[in-house]
């Protein structure tokens, strides 16, 4: 499949997305059967196009008769775009399959499905266009189209003031981030003399200006990606959107931000500096740690997942930071390893976060419940969702043999080459980052034990959950695809890394051939004797021994007798005696208490019973945001004195202005 054909396919995907938007906007009847299938088809086509681009490994460009008179929209498809097309495509495909069943739950609500479907299509089109853009103007248009349409999706449930507030916060921060990105492009453009990416690549920047551009881009894209402390919109906005939208936003949109960052720093700016690497490393590790800690404190399932997006984005940026560091120091091979690790974690996170949000959506759909404290025992009510959700949990906790582990393993491998660095400072920073990464992984595992144990195991804690029904087939298929891919990417890393290899090949001029030099069984990022991981073998032997064990001892599966729980001989436990989510996280809350803004106490109910009240707030609010808001308020309060209402004072202003100007001019 040639490059130009893939480009046409990608264009076709955009058209299909727009088509699904049109269908939902303008037809009432066709919406139900056509909109979402078209959406899924768009995702599939994008996936094919991306894969084609990765295989062909060339570059194809085109021009659209849109945009400024002297700058028509430039479109370009290369390996990097292809990779991210795959990321967007695969999740969109799954979501497109999942959505029809999920949307049935809304048909009797009083919010218009018309807007929902329409903006979903526009959202996808926006993301695809961002990935295809090859000039700053088109990039910004597509970028803001993405933000705006996703904002409409976030605010779709607009009955609660909290949702409206979240949407406002989201749009505001998206706008600010967009402006910052625009400024960053402006710096490049004013040195490169033109807004096409081609011209920017040619820009010769001094270190200072390059760093200015870098910081602007880092802030802008980081705000969209949700890096601490720019993440506050994320846990507000993602939960309030419909779940398949949350899956798209968390699974895909954040990746588009990552794409922007990679495109900007690795491609457009070109020569990188180790200081940037350090900055990205530090921010990334802070995000990873904070994200997982805040996630542990949540008991709203979708909010928790949103905070985990912060964590995983942090991990991705740790990889990118390592890549920057090693590339800047001239260790191309290791830099490439780190870069590939980041890419790999990008697609991994897209897969399992999409999967988890779809699972949350399934629970919401059948039990209408988001609060962990009210769930329980869902595994027996909805076994398929339970299985898929478990796979998601294992993957995101970075446990072998699933995909999350591969990317973290690669990141560790890159970090372990720190001894090759010349500067002692860097040599000692990298291991600390590795420690943070390890801590993050362990905490994530703890968090998902909590989620799965409280939500799917044990006994139901509320009536709705006790009555939960399995979700329709389409939703199960949507989750199943993602779950299967999580397993595949975990078991066959060599194949996929071979596939992604063209990206560093084109971008850094250096592939990762040695990683798969020893056959498909062995993943050897640096060299066979340095480190190797036989993912297929691990999976196979796990499976084989499991079967063996079941055959040996499992003969007695029938011979298990059911009885009441033992529980040290106390009375058979009721559902209210189970460990709650907050209780589960209590030890960690206590150890890391400094980082949280906690409101913890006991308050009497109106019926006289005591009730435990616990709110864990985000510190970055009072550190960064409240001051800004207060400043604007104060300034505006000062400014309105101009409009005092007395005409004589107004005339006085005119006179004063005139006199001052005369005095200035003469």
């Amino acid at each position, binding site marked *: 499949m040639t490059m130009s054909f893939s480009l046409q396919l990608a264009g076709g995907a955009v058209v299909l997305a727009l088509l699904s938007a049109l269908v939902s906007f303008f037809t009432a009847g066709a919406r139900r059967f056509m909109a979402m299938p078209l959406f899924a088809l768009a995702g599939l086509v994008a996936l094919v196009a991306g894969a084609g681009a990765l295989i062909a490994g060339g570059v194809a460009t085109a021009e659209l008769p849109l945009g400024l008179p002297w700058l028509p929209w430039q479109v370009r498809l290369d390996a990097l775009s292809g990779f991210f097309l795959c990321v967007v495509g695969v999740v969109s495909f799954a979501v497109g399959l999942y959505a029809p069943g999920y949307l049935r739950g809304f048909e009797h609500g009083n919010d218009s499905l018309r807007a929902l479907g329409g903006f979903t299509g526009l959202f996808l089109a926006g993301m695809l266009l961002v990935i295809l853009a090859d000039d700053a103007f088109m990039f910004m248009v597509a970028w803001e189209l993405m933000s705006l349409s996703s904002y409409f999706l976030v605010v779709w449930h607009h009955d609660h003031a909290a949702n409206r507030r979240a949407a406002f916060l989201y749009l505001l921060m998206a706008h600010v981030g967009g402006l910052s990105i625009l400024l960053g492009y402006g710096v490049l453009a004013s040195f490169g003399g033109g807004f096409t990416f081609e011209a920017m690549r040619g820009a010769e920047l001094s270190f200072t200006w390059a760093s200015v551009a870098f910081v602007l881009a880092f802030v802008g894209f980081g705000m969209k990606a949700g890096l601490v402390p720019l993440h506050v919109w994320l846990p507000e906005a993602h939960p309030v959107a419909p779940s398949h939208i949350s899956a798209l936003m968390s699974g895909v949109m954040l990746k588009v931000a990552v794409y922007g960052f990679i495109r900007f720093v690795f491609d457009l700016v070109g020569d990188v500096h180790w200081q940037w690497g350090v900055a990205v490393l530090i921010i990334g590790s802070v995000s990873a740690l904070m994200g997982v800690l805040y996630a542990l404190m949540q008991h709203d399932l979708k909010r928790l997942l949103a905070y985990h997006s912060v964590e995983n984005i942090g991990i991705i940026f740790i990889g990118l930071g390592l890549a920057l560091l090693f590339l800047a120091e001239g260790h191309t091979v290791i830099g490439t390893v780190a870069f590939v690790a980041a890419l790999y974690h990008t697609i991994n996170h897209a897969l399992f976060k999409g999967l988890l949000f779809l699972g949350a959506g399934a629970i919401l759909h059948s039990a209408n419940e988001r609060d962990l404290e009210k769930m329980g025992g869902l595994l027996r009510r909805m076994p398929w969702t339970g299985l898929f959700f478990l796979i998601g949990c294992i993957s995101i906790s970075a446990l*072998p043999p699933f995909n999350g582990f591969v990317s973290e393993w690669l990141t560790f491998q890159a970090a372990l080459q720190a*001894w090759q660095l010349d500067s002692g400072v860097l040599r*000692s920073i990298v291991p600390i980052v590795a*420690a943070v990464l390890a*801590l993050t992984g362990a905490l994530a595992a703890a968090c998902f034990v909590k989620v799965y*144990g409280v939500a799917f195991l044990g006994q139901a804690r509320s009536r709705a959950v006790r009555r939960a029904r399995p979700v329709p087939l389409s939703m199960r298929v949507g989750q199943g695809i993602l779950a299967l891919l999580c397993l595949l990417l975990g078991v066959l890393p060599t194949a996929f890394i071979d596939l992604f290899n063209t990206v560093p090949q084109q971008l850094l001029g250096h592939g990762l051939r040695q990683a798969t030099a020893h056959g498909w069984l062995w993943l050897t990022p640096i060299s066979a004797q340095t480190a190797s*991981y036989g993912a297929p073998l691990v999976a196979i032997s796990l499976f084989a021994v499991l079967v063996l064990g079941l055959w040996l001892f499992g003969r007695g599966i029938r011979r298990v007798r*059911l009885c009441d729980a033992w529980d040290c001989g106390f009375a058979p436990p009721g559902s209210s005696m*189970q*460990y709650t989510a907050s209780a589960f996280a209590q030890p960690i809350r206590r150890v890391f208490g400094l980082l949280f803004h906690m409101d913890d106490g006991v308050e009497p109910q109106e019926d006289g019973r005591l009730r435990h009240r616990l709110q864990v707030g985000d510190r970055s609010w009072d550190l960064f945001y409240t001051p800004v808001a207060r400043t604007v308020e104060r300034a505006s309060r000062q400014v309105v004195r101009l409009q005092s209402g007395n005409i004589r004072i107004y005339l006085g202003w005119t006179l004063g202005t005139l006199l001052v100007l005369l005095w200035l001019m003469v």
Partner: protein
Amino acid sequence: MNPVGWLLALVQALLYIALAPLLAGWVRKVKARLQNRRGASLWQPYQDLYKLFAKEARMAHTASILFRAAPYIVFVATWLAAAAVPLLTSDLATAAIADVIVIAGLLALARFFLALAGMDVGTAFGGMGASREMFVSALAEPAMLMAVFTLAMTAHSTNLSAVVDYQLAGANLLRPSYVFALAGLLLVAIAETGRIPVDNPTTHLELTMIHEAMILEYSGRHLALMEWAAQLKLLLYGVLIANVFFPWGIARDVGAGALGLALVVLLGKLMLLGVVLAVSETVLAKMRLFRAPAFLNLALLLALLGLLSYVILEVGA
């Protein structure tokens, strides 16, 4: 990889499950002696396991399918992890499959399902145990990784057999990093295998137990597998410490004599470690749960110091 190597790997893996109860029995025996008791015989753990396998398994009717699958997964994951740690010979085929990070990952997988199994029945104790287990391991795992990273960095490889080879090949330097790493790993091992002062494998006092609280609901073969996995984990850590920090005596070529010698030496080292563990468990008292973080932070600190002293003192030099 030659078939002999694979065969050897298999034998060694089997040897692991064979030896695991023995180490547990030895530690108990020594402890009993230190407390002036005669104690049960060395082979008691084997008899316990046998008894449990023979017994009928019971299960709370609130438990789900996961509750039954968990013991097998836990056991298998632990066993696979163990199979990648050089026991008798450094030339180990399985070590290439799973390097040290994968080993940590497999152990984490086992822990993941152990904790889930604890929460499955929906009893207060199960949840409590799971919560504490994940809490402790969340702090212990990074420490362990840091400790082994120190070795990995010095040997420029995360492949354990390569690390062992490097140790044997290199002159016997006294590395500051190793001192720290060893200390850190010892503390981690204590925490991870649920020994005093972090946890007490013999207690069933509701509020102090961690590991026991999770497997409280298990019985019969399920319980047997869980217990066996725990013993396997203990052995794994023991071998890790013994063979990686003091690799002398491990067989470098596949010959009956060398292997026999290696086995003897290994048993010697393990007995020594067992004594150390028993002594420490006798003289120390179990800590309150919220003292454990201090303990684990110490481990993390030591491990990090090891890593830093490597990158600062030893690479530069």
